[in-house]
């Protein structure tokens, strides 16, 4: 190895390691993710185009309550005044001011979720207070519990309403959950849902609240978020009924009763309204969610290390969507390291230098075998298509364009097929870099034509081997946590790469090529 490369590499490795060790040992930042259950970081992003007049954007904010602890809230908005109001026990974020042009509002928070289980009491010892009844048991436009249809329905159900509220609760829940079918196009209205015996998710929730109130039980609908790892969260709603001092969660759509899973966040209880605006011409909003891998106190240490200048470098302070992208991005240097080892240490040749890294990256979301089969299927189709194109004598760039179209089409049809057959792996193709698949087909075909089947298969085989070797890196939570929490490790990787770049010894492939030198003599006739 030449001396400069050795020294520069050493310097980089030392700098990176020193930073890393200082953070790990002196600042005691956690090295391994402890995998905190149910800790999420959620962001609400609202984009609104104002009319130029004064107005406001209002959105429900979650409160700390049963099954959820909300902390670390932060809000960012340009040119708007942010206040939090409490309306009927719900927290509402209000961004107000003159709304002109496009405004973007981001409200982020962390929430620790736990499963809520409410054992139903065997005996009723407490009755709802007058205020509770006035607030949650009266008729309203949304919940018309005094309507004639509701009274007729109840009269048909029971001669007299049972004494025990638990009996009422079970029977009415069972009725709405089982006898009313859920139809996406169904009505959102409680009475229409009742008469048609079918309704939307909202319609069914409203009907349940309405009939519960009609028998004198305090009940309310809850707007919430359902969180699924690796997917954007979606808004959902469920119902809560007050029995013996407890709000009992239940959902006639998802079918839970008295138990609320740890992937639901309650946003507001008063109504189902999400984002509301005045003086706004157009508005859109979306939620982002990211599961945190650290316990809250560890997270705090990561976000705000004791060293002030380090705190400003903490990646944990970035917006959620940026964090998610960076988590993957920071794994790329490790992929490059593996590639360099394979190419300069073993001397294998692959199709495209970093192609295996991209394949491994695309396979992040699925099982390796299924993903590779899919790649193989797309490539096979492409290569067959290439053979057909060959006969037409097309020029290179249009031919590649046609191939690209074929790749996009086959990936699309696999996704459709996957939906029909309910095999999620089949739809992973859409994550692949299409252009790279196309180039792969072209290179494979050219190698096939120029050098024969064997070299083409050997190179394809090595590409797979390297992709498989890189794959665990992109799947490792340890690697992800280390690289994201300690990005200075990228400097260490740079140092190692410089070392590999300065390696002048034999590659494994050199040894195979010159294996004849091991036998004495040979045929040298000098």
């Amino acid at each position: 190895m030449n001396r400069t490369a050795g020294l520069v590499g050493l310097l980089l490795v030392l700098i990176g390691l020193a930073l890393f060790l200082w953070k790990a040992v002196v600042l005691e930042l956690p090295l391994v993710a402890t995998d905190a259950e149910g800790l999420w970081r959620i962001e609400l992003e609202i984009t609104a185009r104002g009319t130029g007049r004064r107005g406001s954007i209002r959105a429900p904010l979650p409160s700390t309550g049963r099954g959820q602890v909300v902390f670390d809230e932060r809000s960012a908005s340009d040119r708007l005044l942010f206040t939090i109001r409490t309306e009927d026990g719900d927290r509402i974020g209000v961004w107000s001011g003159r709304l002109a042009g496009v405004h973007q509002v981001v409200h982020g928070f962390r929430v620790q979720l736990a499963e809520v289980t409410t054992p139903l009491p065997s005996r009723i010892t407490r009755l709802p207070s007058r205020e509770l009844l006035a607030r949650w048991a009266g008729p309203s436009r949304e919940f018309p519990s005094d309507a004639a249809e509701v009274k007729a329905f109840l009269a048909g159900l029971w001669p007299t309403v049972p004494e025990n509220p638990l009996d009422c609760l079970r029977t009415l829940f069972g009725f709405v959950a089982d006898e009313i079918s859920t139809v996406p196009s169904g009505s959102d209205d409680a009475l229409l849902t009742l008469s048609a015996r079918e309704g939307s998710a909202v319609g069914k929730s409203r009907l349940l609240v309405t009939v519960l109130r009609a028998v004198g039980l305090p009940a309310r609908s809850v707007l919430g978020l359902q969180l699924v790892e690796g997917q954007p969260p979606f808004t959902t709603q469920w119902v809560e009924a007050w029995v013996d001092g407890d709000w009992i969660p239940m959902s006639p759509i998802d079918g839970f009763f008295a138990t609320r899973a740890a992937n639901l966040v309650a946003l507001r209880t008063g109504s189902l309204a999400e984002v509301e605006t005045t003086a706004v011409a157009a508005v859109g909003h979306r939620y982002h969610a990211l599961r945190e891998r650290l316990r809250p106190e560890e997270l705090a240490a990561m976000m705000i290390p004791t060293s002030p200048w380090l705190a400003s470098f903490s990646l944990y302070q970035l917006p959620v969507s940026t964090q998610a992208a960076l988590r993957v991005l920071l794994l790329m240097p490790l992929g490059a390291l593996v590639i360099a080892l394979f190419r300069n240490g073993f001397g294998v040749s692959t199709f495209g230098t970093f192609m295996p890294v991209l394949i491994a990256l695309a396979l992040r979301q699925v099982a390796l075998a299924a993903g590779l089969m899919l790649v193989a299927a797309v490539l096979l189709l492409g290569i067959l298509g290439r053979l057909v194109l060959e006969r037409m004598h097309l020029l290179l760039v249009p031919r590649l364009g046609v191939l690209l179209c074929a790749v996009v089409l086959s990936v699309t049809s696999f996704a459709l097929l996957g939906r029909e057959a309910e095999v999620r792996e089949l739809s992973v193709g859409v994550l692949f870099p299409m252009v790279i698949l196309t180039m792969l087909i072209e290179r494979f075909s050219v190698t096939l034509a120029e050098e024969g089947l064997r070299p083409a298969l050997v190179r394809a085989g090595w590409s797979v081997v390297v992709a498989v070797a890189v794959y665990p890196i992109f799947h490792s939570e340890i690697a992800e946590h280390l690289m994201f929490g300690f990005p200075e490790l990228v400097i260490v990787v740079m140092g190692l790469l410089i070392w590999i770049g300065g390696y002048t010894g034999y590659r494994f492939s050199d040894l195979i090529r010159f294996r004849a030198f091991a036998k004495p003599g040979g045929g040298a006739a000098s």
Partner: protein
Amino acid sequence: MKLLSALRREGVLGINRRNHEFTLRWNPRRLYPTVDDKLATKKLCQAAGIPIPGLIAVARRQVEVREMIGQLADLSQFVLKPAHGAMGNGILVVRAREGDAWRRAGGKRLTPEDLRYHAASIISGLYALGGQPDVAFVEELLEVHPQLAEISSDGVPDVRVIVHRGIPIMSMTRLPTHRSRGRANLHQGAIGAGVDLATGRILHAVLDGAPITRHPDNDRPVLGVVVPSFPRVLEIAVAATDQTGLGYVGADVVVDARKGPVVLELNARPGLAIQAANRAGLLPRLRAVSERIRPEATLAERIALGIEISRTARSMEPA
């Protein structure tokens, strides 16, 4: 481990070290275009009076393809090549005429349309190293020298000379076989035969990395065959290299039956298989060059020095 120590003892050059200490160090990137572009190499050689295969026609753009193929109407033998090809890819050898069409080496029929398509593929960069737009050209087909005809099947053998800082240090000839389909490419099954710099005699030969003594197609002995006009081969290889300014080059020379030795192309990243063909490492010779080089030496003196270095290296080798 035994292999590793054998390689170290013989001074076999590995890819990593070749890149580090020789190609990256002695071949400045800005000089690559003259050797990566075969037409530029031709021009360079022609200007210096170094013999090259005759150039018949060139097409730099798609619109020129029709005209280029039209110029071939009276010819029955020629080679269609990309200017930026690597490893012999994209080379089409035409052997015979058949009415309006031709027949390529290997027997396949070629219509003018086939040739136009091949030329268009070349120009769109299919065979170029980086896929960039390329240039297609046609040059005369070289003829195997009778002295080498017996040990080459279906194609023309070439002689590769490694020239370091103007001094030739190792040489081999690549003999095509049936299996290599007439190509002088070791990966595809051609024979690599180490040639003694002093005498032009084949001393050692390998096929797929393993030593052989006879040609696999006709069982004729390969060892002991002498490359015709070998001193002239060395002379033009070194002279052509001198024109480029590169310090670590593989020069490919063909001994044509009529014209004698001509420079086919130059390579700024010459492969390492020449060591297996010679059963000798390049490193001792490369080191000897840096110890014994004299900047003012004439071409003849440098060739003499190269021969001496290779002879010393050979005699030092363990028996």
